[in-house]
């Protein structure tokens, strides 16, 4: 029983990280109607940037390094959007998948070239130190990471629901043409939203990199989980992404205890299949007439 309780607690804590990463992905989808298959690679890129800063002469703490990597990744996101997403005119949804996949491959190749293909992990004192609770131990890093993710998610919600720029983003998500008609600069909103999504990927990357060892090829596994989460939650729904992420991670961690660790990731996908059979539009999705 303690083991299951432990699995649930860890599911919630790690689910927070996935919620943050999936929010960026679903925000990008919501605003631009594109699937950013490169999101996993951008998370890994963020993790490697912090890894480089940590192992540089300055020894910057991974959490502190976010002050540098998040703005840097924001710029990377804006540049990617302007260079590769904006030129797509017809058939955007399908082509964007290919373009962002190419971005993922490019990032994977570059990281492999610079950092080699060995597994690495971000280390800090709070990664190994732990405290006891409810009969088991939790490493501080999980709590700090969860706190960071909650703070950033709260920031995103404040931005979306309490600022004029957030209103412009939500308007673009609801109806791009109508938003343009009432004076929203949708191109600018799209570029900035992509930048925000990529910046949150950097934050997710730091927490991911401290709790898991990673290599340049880790993005395949990561993106398949993130995409599963946003489909589960309903494409474009932030609330769906957060609930989907936490639910998925709890199920995965509990399955690891109850069934077997090797089947944990499988449980993840089984949930997806069940949800699609019962509710093809996902938890919070609206059934739309989509065309590819």
């Amino acid at each position, binding site marked *: 029983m303690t083991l299951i309780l432990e699995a649930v607690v860890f599911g919630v804590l790690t689910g927070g990280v996935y919620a943050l990463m999936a929010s960026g992905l679903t925000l990008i*989808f919501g605003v631009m*109607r594109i*699937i950013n*298959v490169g999101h996993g690679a951008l998370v890994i890129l963020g993790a490697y940037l912090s890894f480089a800063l940590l192992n540089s002469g300055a020894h910057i703490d991974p959490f502190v390094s976010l002050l540098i990597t998040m703005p840097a990744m924001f710029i990377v996101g804006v540049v990617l959007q302007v260079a*590769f997403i904006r*030129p*797509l*005119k*017809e*058939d955007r*949804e*399908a*082509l964007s*998948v*290919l*373009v962002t*996949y*190419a*971005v993922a*491959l*490019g990032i*994977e*190749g*570059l990281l*492999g*070239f610079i950092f080699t*293909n060995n597994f690495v992990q971000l280390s800090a004192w709070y990664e190994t130190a732990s405290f006891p609770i409810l009969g088991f131990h939790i490493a501080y890093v999980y709590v700090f990471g969860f706190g960071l993710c909650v703070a950033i998610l709260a920031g995103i919600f404040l931005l979306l629901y309490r600022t004029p720029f957030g209103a412009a983003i939500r308007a673009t998500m609801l109806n791009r043409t109508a938003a343009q008609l009432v004076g929203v600069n949708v191109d600018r909103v799209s570029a900035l939203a992509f930048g925000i999504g990529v910046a949150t990927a950097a934050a997710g990357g730091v927490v991911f990199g401290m709790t898991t060892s990673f290599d*340049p090829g880790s993005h*395949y*596994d990561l*993106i*398949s989980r993130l*995409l*599963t989460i*946003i*489909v589960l939650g309903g*494409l474009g729904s932030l609330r769906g992404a957060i609930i989907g992420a936490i639910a998925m991670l709890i199920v995965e961690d509990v399955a690891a205890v109850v069934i077997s660790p*090797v*089947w944990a*990731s*499988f449980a993840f*996908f089984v949930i*997806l*299949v069940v949800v*699609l*059979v019962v509710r*093809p*539009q*996902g938890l919070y999705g609206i059934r739309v*007439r*989509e*065309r*590819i």
Partner: protein
Amino acid sequence: MTRVVTSTPVKFGALAVAVVLALLVPVFATDPATTNIAVFTAMYVGLATAWNIMGGYTGYISLGHAAFFGFGAYAFGLVLAHLGIAGGYEPFLFVPVAGALTVVLALGIGWVALRTRAATFVIVTIAMMFMVQLLAENLVGLTGGGAGLSFPVPPWTGDFYNTPFYYAMLLMALVALAVSWWIRRSKFGLGLLAIRDDEDKALAVGVPAHGYKLTAFIVSAALVGMIGALYGYYVTYIYPQFAIDPLIGISIVLMVFLGGLGTLWGPVLGAVILEPAQLWLAYNFGASRLYLVFYAAVFLVVIILMPRGIVPSVTSLIGRVNNRRAVGPSDAAGSATDTHVIVEPAP
């Protein structure tokens, strides 16, 4: 349209020349390095053509076809092991069995995945691919898990080793092309194109969309599974990350987009251009993974500069030139758009 597309005898003549040239490859190029490239190129011609039946005609972009490729390879290897078939020509006879087993998997995956459309479908196919990969890894008793699965070793040696595989791959590519050509001309194919253009309208005019989509998906997957079976026998040893490689799935898609989505010859052209290039890059820069960067660059350039692919772009160019000749330059701009509309569905 007759002005744009050259006359039928010329087309069949060109086709015959292409087939004869393809048949003669192992005669002219005997060194294994070259025939190896030929085997993989023929393989991707088949894969891209098969993928196009679903992705091109129906407009449902699957990024998970690597699942069927790997599944076909595994199914084939297991069938050969259970029947105790030794290496040689005999295993080739069992390739359709791998195809039949792939049909079963495609039926299950298709039934779930095709409940969704557009972006969601793309994502679900990716998820399904990782599911199949996990199964291959976890069902250790059946697949050998991470340790991999061995095939009977073919008895051929030296320069001849690649030749039987080349002809087998070529045969599969021709089968895929024949199926694609037939579907393109049939009422079924018209239904698929209607689904691509507007699924709800297609439903409204009586196209049995769900059955059609599922059939296209299964046909496409079965062909890919059979090609995967040949691949497994060719490399004689497979393991999950190698047989169910996301990169295979995305390479196919890129080839089709480069050549021309939804055209008959686009996938062939894309595969013939890209696969040798990809092998060359992997061979020269593979160790550093830098080849992924080159590959990504090619990818981005193709999609940004030529989103419609080579075949449609060239066809509309020829159409424009022909029209200009026929009606004079003054009318060229207007008729160019007309040609575009007429030409696009032509294979």
